[in-house]
């Protein structure tokens, strides 16, 4: 007995270690899926708002900076209530209304421009108008090129900033009462009372960002935004929220998308403007004296007893709904509802546009084109290598095609992006005719050879067939390309793309789905080839041999005997290829234009889920809505590839069980 107990101990320990490690690996794998879900789910949770312990010292109205109500900087001249100011890195402007006579208001202000070479601020000549209306609100738009002035009779005017000589007469327009464009989700009901005649002046407040204002009228609160309609900028109605007469204070948030409201009840409520719905409310003990925002996710109220209550909410948990992710939405500044992916900007007031539909469309577009290109090549090669080639040679040809798999996709993307992309689009017709010609020549040559030359099959040359065909194919490609060029000149007046655009009105871009599809298709050839070839080869040769002995041709044997058996494996191969094409990142980053277009057109650009993850994840703030939506995109990608891969695995297993072929 040599050290039996110790050996048994080691044996047991090792078994434990091995089992434990496998469990750990399993957990890690499941953990990956779990983590994606973990980060994504809070996005859909209803808004959680927690009351903070009140600050012990300080006066929020003075100490805490409210980005849209910040204390006026030193260079602002007038500090009266209606003063508006604007600053970006290179321009500083302030403007205020000044009553000069009983019925006349004059706008006064200053305009400073930063002189880049000397780094000094210089005063610019600036002509401002005079008019005979009472001003209840004025503000700069987001660009600082216009001032929006609201008067007490439900009219507004747009004052241009760049006028240096005498200002022309100010044009006043009535505030919009009806909606322009299609009804948008979240607009609330449009009952007759809401489109009533202009009431006595409701209050006007600016939403952060300078793109929209809220107008409070009888029974409704309307969001008005500046829109460019065929060259004219005007204020239009974006949506309305039914207004309760018991509302007292109304404070828009610094990010412009939420509204803090107190009611007579007394209670405090939080409204989401883009969804036009109440998302939180809390009854209060007494009506507050003042409310306000500390930051875009913190707000406060001041009680009569000089105490403060502050609340904070999690920006990443905001009751996202699927509408925002998938449906067209109306955004500030846009004339029509659109599906947009444009998540980030430097301004907090920027409306994050997080619609994933353009990304999904892009992902599938690229994968489809790749599949169309790869399938004939991969499956055709698989048939040849797996069935027509004798077994002994197979082991030499198979790796030759699989070498493609060894090329890192970065390199394939780099080559296509740098060397091929500039010429590919113009060569499309030539490529097409070249391929058609090569195939026709090959087929005709085959039939001619069979008919006239040599008669019996020379099996010895069969494995060399692809190489023997090289000169044939090359010549046909060259010939086909020149025919193609001539054809293009003849049919399309010189260029297919130009013809499509000019004559047919199809919008065309150079970095489009076709270019990406060619690069991507090349990449997935080995993926499809491997599995398809294995499937075809796994069918025992004896079956086909029997068919051949009975007088069927090779192709008939293949089609009738081998193909039905190998079919599930081939389908599995195609699915694996599709799954791979869905998730490929580097080629998309290098070759595609990454423009998130909401269109299925193959000659327009695209942006995929994978490329978006690679580009945007490093710059998103952890636990922000953008971060979580990106994880949602990752989850969708994961689920899609899981779907296709599992289907492929199931098919492979089916082949294994039912046909006894080892895949």
């Amino acid at each position, binding site marked *: 007995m040599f050290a039996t107990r110790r050996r048994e101990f080691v044996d047991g320990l090792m078994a434990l270690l091995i089992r434990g490690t496998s469990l750990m690996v399993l957990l890690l794998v499941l953990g990956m899926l779990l983590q994606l879900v973990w980060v994504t789910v809070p996005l859909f949770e209803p808004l959680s708002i927690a009351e903070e312990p009140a600050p012990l010292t300080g006066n929020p109205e003075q100490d805490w900076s409210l980005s849209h109500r910040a204390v006026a900087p030193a260079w602002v001249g007038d500090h009266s209530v209606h003063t508006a100011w604007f600053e970006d890195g290179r321009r500083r402007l302030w403007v205020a209304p000044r009553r000069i006579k009983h019925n006349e208001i004059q706008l006064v202000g200053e305009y400073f421009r930063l002189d880049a070479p000397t780094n000094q601020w210089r005063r610019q000549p600036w002509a401002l108008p005079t008019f005979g209306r009472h001003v209840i609100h004025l503000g700069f*738009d987001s660009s600082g090129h216009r001032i929006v002035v609201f008067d007490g009779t439900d009219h507004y005017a747009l004052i241009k900033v760049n006028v240096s000589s005498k200002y022309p007469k100010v044009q006043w327009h009535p505030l919009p009462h009806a909606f322009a464009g299609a009804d948008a989700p979240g607009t609330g009901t449009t009952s007759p009372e809401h489109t009533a005649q202009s009431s006595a002046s409701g209050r006007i407040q600016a939403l952060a960002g*300078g793109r929209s204002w809220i107008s409070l009228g009888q029974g409704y609160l309307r969001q008005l935004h500046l829109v460019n309609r065929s060259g004219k900028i005007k204020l239009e109605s974006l949506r309305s929220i039914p207004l309760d007469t018991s509302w007292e204070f109304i404070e828009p948030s610094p990010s412009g998308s939420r509204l803090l409201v107190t009611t007579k009840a007394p209670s405090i409520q939080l409204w989401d403007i883009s969804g036009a719905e109440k998302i939180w409310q809390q009854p209060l003990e007494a009506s507050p004296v003042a409310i306000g925002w500390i*930051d875009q996710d913190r707000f406060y109220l001041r009680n009569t007893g000089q105490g403060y209550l502050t609340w904070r909410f999690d920006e990443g948990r905001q009751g996202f709904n699927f509408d925002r992710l998938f449906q067209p939405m109306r955004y500030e500044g846009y004339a029509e509802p659109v599906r947009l992916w444009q998540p980030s900007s430097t301004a*907090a007031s920027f409306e994050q546009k997080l619609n994933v539909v353009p990304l999904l469309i892009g992902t599938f577009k690229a994968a489809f084109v790749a599949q169309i290109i790869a399938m004939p090549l991969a499956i055709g090669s698989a048939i040849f290598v797996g069935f027509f080639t004798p077994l002994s040679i197979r082991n030499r040809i198979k790796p030759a095609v699989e070498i493609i798999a060894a090329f890192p996709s970065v390199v394939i993307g780099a080559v296509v992006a740098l060397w091929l992309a500039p010429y590919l689009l113009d060569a499309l017709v030539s490529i097409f005719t070249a391929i058609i010609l090569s195939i026709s020549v090959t087929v005709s040559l085959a039939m001619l050879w069979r008919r006239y030359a040599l008669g019996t099959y020379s099996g010895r040359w069969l494995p060399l067939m692809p190489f023997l065909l090289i000169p044939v194919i090359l010549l046909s490609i060259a010939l086909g390309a020149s025919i193609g060029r001539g054809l293009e000149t003849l049919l399309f007046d010189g260029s297919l793309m130009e013809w499509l655009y*000019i004559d047919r009105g199809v919008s065309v871009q150079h970095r489009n789905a076709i270019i990406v599809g060619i690069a991507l298709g090349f990449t997935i050839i080995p993926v499809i080839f491997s599995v398809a070839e294995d499937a075809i080869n796994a069918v025992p040769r004896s079956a086909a041999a029997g068919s051949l002995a009975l007088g069927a041709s090779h192709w008939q044997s293949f089609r009738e005997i081998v193909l039905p058996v190998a079919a599930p494996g081939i389908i599995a191969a195609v699915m694996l290829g599709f799954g791979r094409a869905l998730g490929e990142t580097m080629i998309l980053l290098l070759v595609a*234009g*990454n423009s998130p277009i909401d269109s299925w057109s193959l000659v327009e650009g695209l942006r995929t889920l994978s490329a978006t993850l690679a*580009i*945007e994840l*490093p710059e998103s703030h952890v636990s922000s809505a953008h971060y979580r939506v990106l994880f949602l995109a990752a989850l969708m990608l994961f689920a899609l590839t899981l779907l296709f891969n599992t289907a492929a695995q199931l098919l492979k297993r089916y082949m294994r069980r039912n046909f006894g072929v080892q895949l």
Partner: protein
Amino acid sequence: MMHHLRRRWLHILWMTVFFTGCERDGGATETLVITGSDTMAGLLTAWSAVFSELSPDAVIEIQASGSAAAPIALAEGTASLGAMSRAMSAAELARFQEQRGYLPTVIPVANDALALIVHIDNPISSLSLPEIDGIYSATQFCGGRAYTDWRELLGAQRAGQIGLPAIEAYGRASISGSYGFFKNNALCAGDYSPRVVELPGFAAIADSVADLENAIGYVSLGYVDSRVKLVPVRLEGDDGSANDPGLIPGAPSYPLARTLYLYLSVPPDKKAPPLACEFLRFVATPVAQDRLSIEGFSAVPDLEEIIQSTVFHVCD
């Protein structure tokens, strides 16, 4: 066989460590991490190469993913210096202040401009700001109209020189400071159109514009070379005179001129890390300033004084 393999691997490992360790200095004391603008990446790389020769003990890491990464990295402490091709926005400053409790220190280090480029054969003579807005944005906040076709800008006859008259606009991705700068100054704070092709670097934009007749792009000055044509920009005047030749980068009121910045995070009662201070002092030297023109930038006037006063306040 396993034994031999294992020994050989160990051998290779130690050799690698030994030799690569010998390549670089052993006594590195501090790491200087510069995160941010891709526009400045070439300049920073060149600067750090020269700086390493002067201070061999320095360890430098440059991560140029885009200006938007700089405030985050600076606030978290992952970067010693933040490079940005635009000023930090109010929101970024607010976030920084909330996270750190103070505002970052800013130093302008170079002057740059965004130039609009088109293909050499494109006959366009100048573009006004509303026209640029019409090409690039979905919102046209500058007040003009949308443009999707070169014939709208040139007329059918002159546009005939461009084979495919569809306008293809090339720009940077949202993480880039140039993206934000262009958005605020050329798009009048509007949104980009989703059709704008987003490329990760100016080199790619210049390549695309040089290859495609119908392309237009914006690049930093250093990337304008003989392969592309620079388009002067007309300001939107009262009357928008069509005879205005437009401004080129370098002209006094070129609307897309900008300053490149380095940001530092220095708590009010503390001093900046010595390596960062050394680097800043180095930036003011003639050796570093000579580098600017090679990269296509111009110098900030009185940079030496600015840096001296900054260094005086935040460095030992």
